[in-house]
């Protein structure tokens, strides 16, 4: 029923729903892609401001790709090829405690190396890999956000994983 009635995103209640459902994903996408070199929260909000300003011309079905495209451009405008900096969480993430396996010899060095490799990935590889493996997004969801095909997303994740594995191989106890 409600599918037939085009929802007006200028309406504050509708807009708030979009903000709550897409905001965090947009924010995370920007963070994984560009790291902490930009104020990710700020850029995500700016993209939402642009969306609301254009709420008369953007339909609700187009809102998602509009937001991700705008936010991506906003950041690219600001960045002049700065190096990506990701923040490493020193303690083990919540709800995910595990022992350091035997094959990892130097825990601290591994952490440092992991971060370096992550930062050296292309923005596309890193964003797809982290959204899938950290946020648990399906490939389909990621493909929608980035406005690319699912195959592209799969390829990015696979190549990201291969780079990580190859560069971290040295930490494996033979």
């Amino acid at each position, binding site marked *: 029923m409600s599918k037939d009635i085009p929802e007006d995103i200028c309406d504050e209640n509708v807009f708030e729903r979009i903000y709550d459902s897409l905001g*965090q994903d947009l924010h995370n996408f920007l963070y994984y892609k560009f790291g902490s070199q930009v104020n990710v929260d700020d850029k995500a909000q700016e993209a939402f401001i642009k969306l609301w300003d254009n709420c008369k011309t953007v339909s609700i079905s187009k809102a998602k790709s509009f937001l991700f495209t705008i936010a991506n451009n906003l950041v690219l405008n600001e960045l002049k090829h700065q190096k990506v900096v990701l923040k490493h969480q020193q303690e083990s993430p919540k709800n995910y405690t595990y022992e350091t396996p035997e*094959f990892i010899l130097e825990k601290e060095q591994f952490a440092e190396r992991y971060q370096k490799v992550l930062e050296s990935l292309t923005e596309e590889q890193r964003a797809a*890999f*982290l959204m899938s*493996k950290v946020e648990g997004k399906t490939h389909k969801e990621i493909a929608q956000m980035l406005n690319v095909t699912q195959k592209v997303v799969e390829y990015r994740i696979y190549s990201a994983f291969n780079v990580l*594995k190859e560069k971290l191989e040295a930490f494996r106890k033979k």
Partner: protein
Amino acid sequence: MKKDELIEKWLKNELSEAENKAFQQLEDADFNTYIVDYAKHFKASDHSKLSDFNSFKERYNKQKTPVRKIDWFNPFIKVASVIIVTLGLYFTFFFNQETRIETLANENRTVTLPDNSIVKVNELSQLVFSEQNWDNNRTLDLDGEAFFDVEKGNRFDVNTANGKVSVLGTEFNVVSRDSVFKVSCYEGLVQVTYNNNDVKLPAGTEFSLKSGQGSKTTIAIVEPYWLKNMSVFENATLTDVVKELEKHFDINVQYPTDLTTNFTGAFEHGNLQNALKSITKPLDLTYTIKNSKVVIARHE
């Protein structure tokens, strides 16, 4: 199934039960899992979170305000813009800052105009000109006496109550006091306009206007005597000479008014005794000075 294919499928979370077992059998299965799981150390929400909708709305409304367009139909803005435009026009076209130079008795002043032309202003004279746009409009107003050394350039006009003097670059002297109007040209060419008449004065000539009648005479001197602190007369009545004397020394002079002979000569400004001698000797008169009052009389 090949190892690469297995890992690819594993990354897609599409392993079947059997495939999962095969994956676990891989010698680097633990390492693969560890690499993927380790990514959770970089979870975005540990470092940065999106602001909630309310703070977003606050920011949205704040950002809206300064973008508001100026309402040109607001009566206040209408009035203000009219005032600003009017003031702008006034200052551009009508507000000319004047330079006014006035000399007192016994005071000479030398003025350098914006184009480096030099004006020497004699005592008790007034010179007014506008420095704005001087190069295109070299016009000044004179009441009294002044000597001009004009740089070459556009037309140079001296307006007086008795007539207009125009030049293109020359040296000349202008006297315009009460009904006396005299222009002396020392260099170049001067044009004098009076009562709709034009007179051209080449170097070394002098024009004087007496009771509406203009006349041209030659002058031999290279610059006016007052520049050298002298007053010069040619065929002048004693009344004219005494007036000039009284003005220079700020004194009162009694003299015989019925004298018919005219005076041709000069007196210097610095010394009263010498000046009186210069005037009385040629006219065969005597003088006495009593308490700053001078009496000129015929020889007894």
